[in-house]
């Protein structure tokens, strides 16, 4: 088996991988390759036919395929090698990548830098331990989206959606437009998981009820799903006895969260953050293994693709410097998520240049005050009219305000 030597291997040809590849080429890194599992690059955007992508980046509302095409077209123009129908099986700490390809068979590649851009996958029924029988008709929102939008397969006529993540909301509208009845969207939390605009244009527009603090307590049916039993939950998320309500339906769609897909990161020995499910990275998006970088949904789940592209481009600039100098500036200052903040990225910073922090609040706050503290003193505070767990916050942090190497803590009230 031949060994293919590259400057940089990018694993994943979705929005993160394509943006990284393009920016690397623009920065003068010529010897790169993108490995993509599917027949066509573009990642999850290919099945996201709804619009609203690109408002930040292109100041216009594009559908998923159109947004992906802006990058794909550029990748083609720049002659970026794209190995499609190729699955990376293993990334070694020495930056060797083992892959299998429909066209080329078994592949061994080695690079000076590896970019992990594998995206994320959906939590399934097993992950949330839904009780009941195991009939056909219980599927995740992304799978439903792929069946309907890519494969031309209608999945059912009467649906209930569990979880109010954006894909679930988008699918509620899509199913309704395709003639199915969506009886309700159930959300276990006291607040919606998706963006407010999606609640309005996907549920309110079509009169689909959103039942907060509700979950599924039973799944019924043998061959095909026949009904589900919904119940209200208390403050500890336990079902309230007597609150059960049966919904007759042939389809239950799960939109109960996304998990960064980090199996390859683990084969490389990369340290993960249990809160994000992604790698621990410094401000260069470099993981705990030098020369291996991570950005996009494989690092932390984003709500807007525009920021996936942006993050991958920032990563690419660091990779270009790494390839030129053989190393990157060290990042000795730790960044910690304090009270009210579920996570903050990057995990460490250099303190010598401006970085943009990405963070999420734990609970909806209105108004919201984000504070960055160091050694007991406040170095930065910023007020927001509102903050929702569904909306990632980007906070620029200037180098001048960081003093010494003591850790920084970010809190939200």
């Amino acid at each position, binding site marked *: 088996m031949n060994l293919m030597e590259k400057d940089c291997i990018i694993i994943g040809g979705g929005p993160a991988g394509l943006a990284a590849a393009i920016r690397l080429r623009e920065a003068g890194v010529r010897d790169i390759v993108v490995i993509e599992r599917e027949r066509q690059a573009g990642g999850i955007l*290919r099945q996201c*036919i*709804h*619009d*609203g992508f690109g*408002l*930040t980046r292109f100041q216009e*509302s*594009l*559908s*998923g*395929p*159109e947004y992906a*095409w802006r990058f794909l077209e550029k990748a083609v123009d720049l002659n970026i090698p794209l190995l499609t129908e190729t699955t990376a099986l293993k990334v070694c700490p020495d930056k060797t990548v083992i892959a299998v390809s429909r066209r080329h068979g078994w592949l061994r590649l080695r690079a000076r830098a590896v970019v992990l851009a594998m995206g994320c996958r959906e939590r399934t029924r097993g992950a949330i331990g839904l009780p009941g029988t195991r009939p056909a008709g219980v599927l995740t929102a992304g799978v439903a989206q792929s069946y*309907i*939008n*890519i*494969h*031309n397969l209608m999945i059912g006529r009467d649906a209930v959606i569990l979880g109010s993540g954006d894909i679930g909301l988008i699918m509620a509208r899509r199913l309704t*437009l*395709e003639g199915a009845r969506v009886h309700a969207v159930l959300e276990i939390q006291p607040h919606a998981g998706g*963006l*407010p*605009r999606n*609640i*309005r*244009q996907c549920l309110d*527009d079509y009169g689909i009820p959103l039942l907060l603090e509700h979950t599924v307590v039973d799944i019924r049916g043998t061959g095909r799903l026949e009904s589900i039993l919904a119940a209200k939950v208390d403050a500890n998320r336990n079902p309230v006895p007597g609150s059960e309500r049966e919904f007759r339906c042939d389809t239950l769609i799960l939109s109960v969260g996304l998990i960064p897909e980090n199996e390859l990161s683990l084969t490389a020995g990369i340290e993960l953050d249990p809160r994000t499910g992604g790698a621990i990275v410094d401000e260069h998006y470099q993981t705990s293994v030098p020369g291996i970088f991570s950005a996009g949904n494989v690092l932390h789940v984003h*709500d*807007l693709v525009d920021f996936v592209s942006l993050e991958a481009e920032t990563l690419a600039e660091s990779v270009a410097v790494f390839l030129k100098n053989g190393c990157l500036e060290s990042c000795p200052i730790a960044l910690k998520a304090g009270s009210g903040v579920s996570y903050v990225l990057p995990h460490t910073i250099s303190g010598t240049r401006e970085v943009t922090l990405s963070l999420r609040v734990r609970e909806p706050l209105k108004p919201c005050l984000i504070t960055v503290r160091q050694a007991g003193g406040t170095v930065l505070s910023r007020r927001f*009219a*509102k903050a929702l767990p569904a*909306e990632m916050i980007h906070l620029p942090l200037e180098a001048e305000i960081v003093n010494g190497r003591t850790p920084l803590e970010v809190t939200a009230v």
Partner: protein
Amino acid sequence: MKTSCVCIICPKGCELEGETDGQEILSLEGASCPRGREYLAQELRDPRRTITSTVLVEGGESPLVSVRLSAPVPKNQIFAVMEAIRRLRVVAPVSLGEVLLPDLLRLGCDLIATHQVFAAEKYGPR
């Protein structure tokens, strides 16, 4: 009359709160850009939405092509538009940006392909 709604123009999702007479905006708070007022004014007068869907493709390497409208249509026309989209058949190849149905239902907007679909033979036997 007090009116509150979430602006759907961009992902920011501003919570608009205002005073209206049912037709015109008398006062408005919560919009962080001028599009919020435009949106609410439109919503009061003539609520419109863009639609995205898919159209059946014959002889293509995939069975569907994704589509969108070139401009929003009145909310009460959404299902009529969907029916017209459902009835449509196109033949591969389809290119991105191609108008598949001009002046849809005489609503003044076109149905546009948002993806390309190559003819099936391009890929050959698999």
